[in-house]
């Protein structure tokens, strides 16, 4: 399905992905800075709401956390970790809302030069339910887990 509102196009390419595409009248460098510099993020991410940026470690594995304050006095915390940071090109991070712990979204933003000083942004959100996360833990990581336990056994044996 495709919906176009204002200047962006929204599609759902898989059953758990939202993809939004939009062009901005600004070069990639400016769009990248708006995405990664705390004092700039604070000026748009909250959509007019006050935004307190508690952490913004823009590097692989870095932690980010922001708290949004709505006019009716509510606060909403959002946080996650950066997975990939390739300046002016691509940024990928996990996203969780305090109100739905365990429901993780993998957000990826890609920046393309659209010519004439414009940038095309492609933002993708992949949703994971807690069940899906557990499913991954049980499948791919079992081998690694068994090895870790074996190593733990050895450490414990040595402590006696």
């Amino acid at each position, binding site marked *: 399905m495709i919906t176009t509102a204002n200047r962006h196009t929204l599609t759902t390419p898989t059953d758990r992905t939202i993809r939004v595409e939009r062009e901005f009248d600004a070069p990639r460098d400016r769009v990248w800075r*708006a995405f990664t510099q705390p004092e700039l993020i604070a000026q748009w*991410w909250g959509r007019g709401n006050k935004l307190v940026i508690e952490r913004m470690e823009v590097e692989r594995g870095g932690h980010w956390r922001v708290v949004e304050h709505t006019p009716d006095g509510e606060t909403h915390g959002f946080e996650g970790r950066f997975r990939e940071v390739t300046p002016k090109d691509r940024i990928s991070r996990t996203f969780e809302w305090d109100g739905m712990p365990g429901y993780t979204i993998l957000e990826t933003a890609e920046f393309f030069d659209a010519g004439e000083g414009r940038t095309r942004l492609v933002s993708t959100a992949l949703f994971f339910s807690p069940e899906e996360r557990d*499913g991954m833990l049980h499948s791919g990581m079992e081998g690694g887990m068994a090895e870790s336990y074996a190593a733990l056994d050895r450490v414990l044996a040595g402590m006696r």
Partner: protein
Amino acid sequence: MVQYSSTLDSVFAAVADPTRRGILERLGRREASITELAEAFDMTLTGMKKHVRVLEDAGLVQTKKVGRVRTCTLGPRRLAAEAAWIANYQQMLEAQLDSLGEFLERTKGDRP
């Protein structure tokens, strides 16, 4: 998992529409009849029935007919909470892009 996945597909289809997101948000506060929803969203009864059916097929809304009134409530709790979360996220993402567009417009020519 397979069942979950196909359910989520219909959840996405259901929440892709702003009116249906509004219906979910409203039903999250309290139940309402189709007539009340149609009035609230300034829509014909037939139009509202179609939206409600899509939400019902996705398991997001349950309806119950008592006499001549069909009452709508949010569907099974976990799924409904999840759908509302996805709907909120999508709304937030779209509003953020508008906000970013305005910010870039506003700061054009500024040098940090």
